[in-house]
Structures are given as structure tokens and as C-alpha cells.
């Protein structure tokens, strides 16, 4: 938009960019400062007193370890089931043209747009009818189902890039479709499988509403819900601890995202999302 050598325009562009950077940084300021200040309050007043006390306070089974373990089980389980079902479904979608496949793809694409939040009231009524509320496996199955449309869409796009000729050789050797999927396509699709797994994992790690509705007992709730409970119960008094908790809960996601974008390039989670 601006010519590289036009002074005032260039300066204006840098000013706007600096403003953007500062505005995006400021909301983080409190989180960072409060976490390392003992007895921090809401204001990000810097008292120049640093300590790991807040982290120490929250690093116990009750506050952090069990919720994070629950998050690992829920997000990891969801991601595993999603990747498994999506890989299988993506195979015929990528390899054969059929009316059913086409219809299925349209359905998938359509469902990626449906607001999951809105489905939660009927899901809750249905789950309570069949006594499935407060069950972690039932929660995982719903999360997997709601992650599937986008996962299948991504997986199909990744599988399309594996040449079909490689498989034909295997077929002439008498290998069945499951064998050629396992021995030929999957090894070539490790990056794609990783992206779908991590994308699903990260999305569900941050998912608040679904476990908030479907799980009642504190013992099985993931960190996204317990951190909210902590906020509404102790948040007003123990801000430093809340900030420390928030950082510890956020860190895995940020690390995963950074690792993924190093390996697969910046916009990894956009893969296949916008093909308009």
C-alpha cells in the first residue's frame, strides 16, 4: 500500500503498527505482572517485588495438577478419536467420487459453520435423559463429534496431496484398501495427522462452555472450568494466584502453537479453512 521510499507514508505506517502492537500487548500486562507479585491486586501497579510465591500457591493437586490432568485426558482423548474417525472418512472422500461422498462433504462443510454453543442446551437435555451428564467418556464423544466436520475437511485436503499412483502399485500387489491406507498413505501424511491432532487438542483445551455444561463434579472438570470457578470464588482476593494459574494453563497451548508454526509455517491452523 505504501511505496517503500515515501517518507511520511512510511512513518505513518510504522506509527500505526506500533499502536497496534502496544494495544495488543497491554491486556497481557496485568497477567504477567500480577503473577510474579506477591499479593497482587487488579491494577498492574509495578511494586518491583518479584517472587514465585503465586506459582507456588497454585502448584498443588487440587488447583492445578488434577484439572490439567483432566484437560489432558479430555483434549487428548477427543483428538485421538477425531483423528481416527477423520482419517477413515477422509480416505473414500479423497479417493473415490461418489454421490454419497459429495453429499457427505457438503454436509461436513455446512456443519463446520453451525454454532456449537447453540447445540448445548439440547445436548444437555438429551444427556440428562440418558443419564450421560457428568460422564467424561460421553463428554469426549460429543467433543469428538463436534470436532469431526472440520477435521475431516482438513484431512481430506491433506490426503488429496498424496498421489494415488503410489497406492495403485500396492493394489496390484494385492493389498486391500486398509493396508494401503496404513502402509502407504499414513506414513506420508504424518504432518497432516499432526496438524489435525494438535488443532483439535488446542481447541478442546480452551473449550469452556461444553465441559461447563456437561460436567458437574469438580473432580472431573478440566482446567478451563476450574480456572473459571477459581476466578468467581477467589478471584477478587487472590489475583496473583489467578494470574499464575492462567499462565500455567495457557503455556502448553502457546508452546504447541509455536512449535507447530515453526515446523509447518505460520498459519498452520488455517489449513484448509479458507479455500474460497
Amino acid at each position, binding site marked *: 500500500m505504501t511505496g517503500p521510499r515515501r517518507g511520511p507514508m512510511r512513518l505513518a505506517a510504522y506509527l500505526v503498527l506500533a499502536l497496534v502492537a502496544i494495544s495488543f500487548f497491554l491486556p497481557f500486562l496485568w497477567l504477567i505482572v500480577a503473577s510474579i507479585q506477591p499479593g497482587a491486586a487488579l491494577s498492574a501497579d509495578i511494586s518491583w517485588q518479584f517472587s514465585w510465591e503465586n506459582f507456588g500457591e497454585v502448584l498443588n493437586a487440587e488447583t492445578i495438577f488434577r484439572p490439567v490432568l483432566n484437560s489432558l485426558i479430555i483434549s487428548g482423548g477427543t483428538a485421538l478419536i477425531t483423528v481416527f474417525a477423520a482419517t477413515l472418512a477422509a480416505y473414500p472422500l479423497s479417493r473415490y467420487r461418489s454421490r454419497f461422498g459429495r453429499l457427505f462433504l457438503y454436509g461436513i462443510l455446512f456443519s463446520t459453520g453451525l454454532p456449537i454453543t447453540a447445540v448445548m442446551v439440547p445436548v444437555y437435555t438429551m444427556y440428562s435423559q440418558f443419564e450421560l451428564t457428568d460422564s467424561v467418556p460421553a463428554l469426549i464423544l460429543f467433543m469428538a463429534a463436534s470436532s469431526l466436520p472440520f477435521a475431516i475437511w482438513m484431512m481430506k485436503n491433506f490426503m488429496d496431496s498424496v498421489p494415488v499412483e503410489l497406492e495403485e502399485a500396492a493394489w496390484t500387489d494385492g493389498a486391500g484398501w486398509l493396508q494401503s491406507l496404513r502402509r502407504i498413505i499414513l506414513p506420508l501424511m504424518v504432518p497432516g495427522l499432526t496438524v489435525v491432532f494438535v488443532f483439535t487438542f488446542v481447541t478442546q483445551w480452551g473449550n469452556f462452555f461444553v465441559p461447563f455444561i456437561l460436567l458437574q463434579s469438580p473432580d472431573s472438570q478440566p482446567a478451563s472450568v476450574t480456572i473459571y470457578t477459581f476466578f468467581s470464588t477467589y478471584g477478587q482476593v487472590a489475583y496473583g494466584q489467578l494470574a499464575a494459574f492462567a499462565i500455567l494453563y495457557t503455556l502448553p497451548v502457546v508452546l504447541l502453537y509455536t512449535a507447530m508454526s515453526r515446523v509447518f509455517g505460520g498459519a498452520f491452523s488455517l489449513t484448509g479453512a*479458507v479455500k474460497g
Partner: protein
Amino acid sequence: MTTATAPRAARFGAFVPALLLLVVFFAGPLLWAVYSAFTDVALTGSAEVNFIGVDNFTTMWHDAQFWNSLWLTLVFVVGSAVIGQNTLGLLIALLLRGRNAGTRGVVSGLVIAAWTVPEVVAGFCWYSYLHRDGTLNGILGWVGLDQNWLYTTPMLAVILANVWRGTAFSMLVYQAALNDVPPELHEAAAMDGASAWQRLRSVTLPLIRRSIVSNLMLITLQTLAAFGLIYVMTKGGPGTKSSTTPIYMYQESFQFYKLGYGTAMALVLLVIGAIFSLIYVRLIKVDNL
């Protein structure tokens, strides 16, 4: 493009796990929603559920608070997604073109950081940022503009928070789209004496039109049912001043135990989402499928 030797098992058997999950846990609740929206099912544990026809929808029609929530949802979607995220994302993508790696790294790094943070944590950050004693008032206090943002302007507060959280998506979409615009076109237009603004309007924007439309559809769909961010920051308050339809639906269903009524509202949200989703599906080229 495909071989005729396709075994039937591969064609249909492979769909079974995904279909089973989608039908039981996704389509099932949707159908259930259609059914229970016409009943008086409640959370109070009374076993009797009556079919009450369109009563829930009649109630909704006369419920001023529902219309208020729909209006606030519209304000939230248009303000934070269509105007905020979309414009800011495009602006950042345009400004970052051709900058050095350091600038690009810092700016897009911060924008993406806001995006990767889980919804609830984003809510905490903004709650504390806009709080009476928070960072923003600390800065604005110098010029006497400090106030209790979460009470005086709750909608603006949640809109700004959602712009902060969601701009990265639009930015990434537009960065990818701008990469595909051939630089020669720009140079040619510049040679002809077109100003930066003219080049943007008559060269760049028409070329990325498709990305703009799909981005608008996608962010609208992502914003329509936002819950956690608003719930953490304002709980829909003060009063009902930031109670968008998802928040109102949650309160009616789980705090006032009117699940049937809540489901009817969910159905309205789903229909709105479905309309946008259909438009989006139509936009994707058919030969891509």
C-alpha cells in the same frame, strides 16, 4: 481421477465411525432440539413433559428481553467481527507487507498471541484491563478519562475484547490472500500514477474479493455464538446490557430451568447460523469438492 476397482468396503465402511459419531452426538441433539423446542421440558426434575406446540415461540415473540438479546448479538457480530476484526486484520496485513522480519515478527506475534490464549484467560485479561482499578484506567487517569468501563459501556468492552482475540484469524487470511497478488500489478498501477489508496481500491481489493467474503462468513459464524468471553467479563450485565442471545439462552435454560424455552432460542440461533453456513458452502467452488 479414480480407479474403478474401488472396493465397496472402502467406499462405505470407512465412513462408519465418523457417521456414527456425527449421527448420535451431533445430528441427534439437533433433532432433539427441534422436538423439545415444542415442549415444556424443565430442569426441575418433573418427569412430565408436555407437548405445547408453538407456545415457546409465541413467548419468544412477545419477550422483549429476547429481542434485546438478538439486537445485542447483532451489535456484537457487526461491531467485533464484520467491522473490528475484519478491517483491523486487513489493515495490519496491508501495513505489514514488505516490512522487515523484526517488525513482522513483533506485530503478528502479539496479534497471534492474543488469538492462541484460551477464551477464559482472554476474558480475565480484559476484565482486569478494563476494571475500575485496571491498566487502562491507570493510563487514562492521566487525562481524566478513567471510568468503570465494564459498567458504563459493557457492549463496547466485550466488542473490544473480541476484536483483540479474533483479529489474528482475519490477519492470517489476508496475509495469505495478499501473497497471491502479483506485485507487477501494483508496480504497473504506480507507474500510471495511481495513489496508494487508488491502488488498494482498484487493484488489491478486487483481487482478494473472494477471501474477503469467505472471511466475513467464517468470522460471523465464529462470533454468533460467543459465550465464554462475554460470560467471564460481564455475565451479560449490568442488568441485561450485554446479554446476547447465547447468554440469555444459557440463563433461561440453566438458571431459570426453562430448557424448552432455551432450546427454542437455540433453534433460532441455529437457523441463523445455518443460513450463513449455506451461503458459505455455496461460495466454495463446487469443483473443489
